Every structure is written in C-alpha cells, then in structure tokens.
C-alpha cells in the first residue's frame, strides 16, 4: 500500500453496521448466505399485474409484510422504498449496537429514490380511474429524500441529511460522500446506502422501451448474456469514525479507504471505459492505493452487452495482465437501481470480513470481449485486503468505493 503524506486521511472511517432487504434474503445473514451460495433471486413477477409487460421477470422482495414492521398510523406515510430503507437501517443500527451519539454530528446521506409504487398507483387512480382527488400524503411519499428523512426521524439524527441523485450510482455516491464527511471530521457517524422499489407497471414499461431487459435471468460477463433484470431492495451501512468505533468497542466489518467519481460527459446511456477507469483510479488515489493493492472488485456488471464489455475493458486497463477476481451480485439480486450500490457495498464489506467472494451466477460461456475472471457460478474463499465496488449510471455518472479489511 502506497503511503503518501498528502493523501494521509485525517480520520479513518469504519463500517460498523450493515442492513439489507433483498430478493435473496430479508436480513444480512440470510442475504450473505444466499449470495455466497449463488442463490438466484430472479423469478416471475408476483407483486404487480403483468398482462401488459413484455418482460415479466424481476428480483422482487417477496413475503415483505409492511404491517409487521410499521404501526398502522405510520404506514400511509411510507412508500415501499422507504419501508425497505427503514427495515434495513434498523438492522444496521442494531448490528452496530449503536447506542448514543451526538445528534448534531450524526447524519443520513442516502440514495434519492422516487417513490415509484406511490407515483404509479396515484396516477393510475387519477388518469386511469378518473379519481377526483389523490391521497394527501402522495407528495411526501414520492419525494426522493423520503427514505433519508424517515431514517433521520426514526433515529433522531439531526446533522446533515440529504439524498444523492445519480440513478444507478446514487447509493455509491451517498456512501462515498458520507465517508468523506466523516474523514474530514465534519461528522462522527452517518447512516448511508440506498433503497429502491421501482417494480411498478409504468416503470417496467419504461424500461421495456429501452430494449435492455433480459427475457431470461441475468448473466453478467457471459457471452450469451441478454440484458439486465430489475430488482428491488435496500442496502444500508453505518459509517463512523474509526476512533469512535474503537473507543466504544464496536465490531468493525471493514474500513472505508477511498472514493472516486467521474462523469463521462458523453453519451446519455452508453457507458464509457474511460469514465469507468477514471473513477476507479480516483478511488484508489483517494485512498493512497495502487491497482496492485486490489484483490477483488464487486462489479457494476448489469448483464447488458454494452456495460459488461465496457467495464471489462476498463478493468483490463486498470489491472493490465493481472487477473483480479470480479463478480456481479446483480446476477442474484437483480439491478436494484438506486439501491444497487448500497447492497453491493454491503456485499463488498462482507467479502473483506470473511475472505469470501460471491460468484457471478448464470455464467455459461466465456466472452472474448469480457476477458476477466468473473468468479463464475461458485463462490471462492480468498483473503481480501482491498476491494472496489463499482457503480455506473445512465447520464454517464460513475462512482467507485475502495474498501479495506478491518
């Protein structure tokens, strides 16, 4: 690891709490066990009408009973995305055995996610069923900062609270910003990550029009990959200053080391290898790291022809001939959009903690355009010191986290 005086962080940052709701598991132990078993969370859509959908597959969170988690009077305030966010945040704070913090130095920085379930059902009532009025909580349920606000309210966190909007990189931008605010000494702790529940008829039709949805499962980096599959869920991390975590005897899952961002400033939807490479390099530079330090990459890996080919090219340029294991959790949890970076950062922290790499499942055939070691189909036990988690969004927005073993 490169030691550079100028890059020496003033304050180390620990990951002390993890929380998850995903198609393959309703909490972190179930999620991690399924992820390392190579369990596929993709299946026929069960929670919305599918007659009008061309693609009827998704990675849904099934069996989620809102009434089991929220009081009757509170439920009308909560879109499904916010519900998933709160359940995952509760797990993360329980996991961290959080206790008391200075509320003014405790923040929430979370992925901006439109309340799609509310959005879709409200406008169905208005335009489709000619409703005379909409529910008075429609606006606060839809607002993209709702998950962040509800987390702050539930836990009494009175420091900075806001939502980051960068589509499929939103959660990674949130986590990276949270990391930087703690590292610079502005905050002691931040609840961060993302939640997304966008499997609505309207939004699925919108995705269908982009012609990138897989008619099958999601097969990242496989020659016969046929597109992405939409997922839903939440991934939440509690970050806190290393000294605070140590002082209170917290169990530390991983260390945040670096965060890099870039903008392709090119095509609206097609990814750029230059942009991806620049963000990965920036994350390494931010943490005073070299490409040679990296043992594992949790890829963006959507399963589209274009993303995987471009990401593989960027990885080859970063690592040269060194074959660093790279896997895509989206093969199991689907593309959870604004939540993707949160779920994948949780997976990356657990990879570092346990020395276990989740596989890329659904892999059938090597693609010369994706000449990387994608940990096909079976998890691998390997000690990991430094790992990257990649998120690349429509709009050409790239965000990469560098994390280290605690």
């Amino acid at each position, binding site marked *: 690891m490169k030691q550079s005086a100028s890059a020496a962080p003033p304050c180390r940052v620990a990951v002390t709490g993890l929380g998850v709701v995903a198609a393959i598991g309703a909490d972190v132990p179930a999620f991690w066990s399924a992820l390392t078993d190579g369990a596929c969370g993709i299946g026929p859509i069960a929670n919305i009408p599918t007659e009008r959908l061309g693609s009827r597959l998704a990675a849904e969170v099934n069996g989620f009973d809102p009434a089991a988690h929220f009081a009757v009077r509170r439920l009308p305030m909560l879109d499904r995305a916010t519900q998933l966010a709160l359940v995952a945040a509760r797990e993360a704070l329980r996991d961290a055995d959080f206790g008391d913090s200075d509320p003014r130095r405790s923040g929430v920085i979370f992925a901006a996610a439109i309340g799609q379930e509310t959005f879709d059902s409200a406008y169905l009532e208005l335009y489709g069923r000619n409703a005379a009025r909409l529910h008075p909580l429609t606006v606060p349920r839809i607002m993209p900062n709702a998950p962040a606000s509800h987390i702050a309210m539930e836990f009494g966190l009175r420091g900075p609270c806001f939502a980051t909007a960068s589509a499929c990189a939103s959660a990674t931008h949130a986590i990276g910003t949270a990391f930087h605010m703690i590292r610079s000494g502005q905050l002691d702790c931040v609840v961060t990550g993302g939640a997304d529940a966008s499997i609505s008829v309207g939004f699925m039709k919108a995705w269908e029009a982009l*012609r990138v949805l897989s*008619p099958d499962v999601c097969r990242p980096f496989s020659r016969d990959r*046929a597109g992405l599959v939409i997922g839903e869920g939440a991934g939440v991390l509690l970050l806190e200053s290393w000294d605070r975590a140590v002082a209170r005897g917290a169990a530390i899952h991983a260390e945040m080391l670096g965060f890099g961002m870039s903008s392709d400033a090119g*095509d609206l*939807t*097609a990814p750029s290898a230059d942009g991806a490479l620049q963000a990965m390099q920036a994350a390494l530079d931010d943490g005073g790291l070299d490409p040679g330090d990296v043992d594992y990459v949790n890829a963006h890996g959507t399963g*589209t022809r*274009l993303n995987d080919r471009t990401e593989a090219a960027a990885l080859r340029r970063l690592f040269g001939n060194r074959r660093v294991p790279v896997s895509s959790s989206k093969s199991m949890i689907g593309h959870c959009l604004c939540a993707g970076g949160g779920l994948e950062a949780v997976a990356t922290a657990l990879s570092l903690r346990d020395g276990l790499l989740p596989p890329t499942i659904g892999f059938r055939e090597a693609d010369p355009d994706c000449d990387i070691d994608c940990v096909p189909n079976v998890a691998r036990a390997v000690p990991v010191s430094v790992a990257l988690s990649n998120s690349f969004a429509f709009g050409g927005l790239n965000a990469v986290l560098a994390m280290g073993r605690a």
Partner: protein
Amino acid sequence: MSDAAHAPLTAAAVDEQILAIVAKEANLDRALLRPEARIDELGIPSLDMTMAVFELEKHFDIEIPVIAEQPGAEFATVDDLVSHVRGVLSKAGRIAGPAA
C-alpha cells in the same frame, strides 16, 4: 392509425419507409444505409437505434419484439434491422404478396 394505414404495403415500400425513419433518427444520409453497412461503423449510438425502433413501432403501429438472443446490440447491420421489422410486418399480414 387509420385502417388505411394498415393496408398491405409492397416489400419495397416497407424497406423504403424503414430506412427513411432510421436515417432520420440517426441523422444520417439515407444513401449510407446499405444493407451490409454495420451499425457500429456507421457510428449510430445505441440510444438512436432504440429511438429508431420506437419510431418504427409508432409508424407501422406494431410491436417490434426484442431479439431474444442478443438484446442490447440487437442489430449488427442495417439489413438485420430491416429484415427483423419486415418479418414482423409480414407475420401481421401487412406486406402484399410473398414476403421478400
């Protein structure tokens, strides 16, 4: 779309309409859209291709299914697209005479 718009077209007219729409969406000279021309070599971005397919669906009032084997880069050449759309129209009985 009126019923008249659904009257069978000749194969040549169909090809001409498809190419006119692609040329407009890709902002390219129609003459460049030779059947064997590769989409990537013509420099047509993937989003422009998606937009062209959307416009074709509207124009012909049909649904153009994603080619299951290779979504994301569905059409390698101009002819791949034209043949696919022609096939959909032909199946719907919208092309006069035997399919080209």
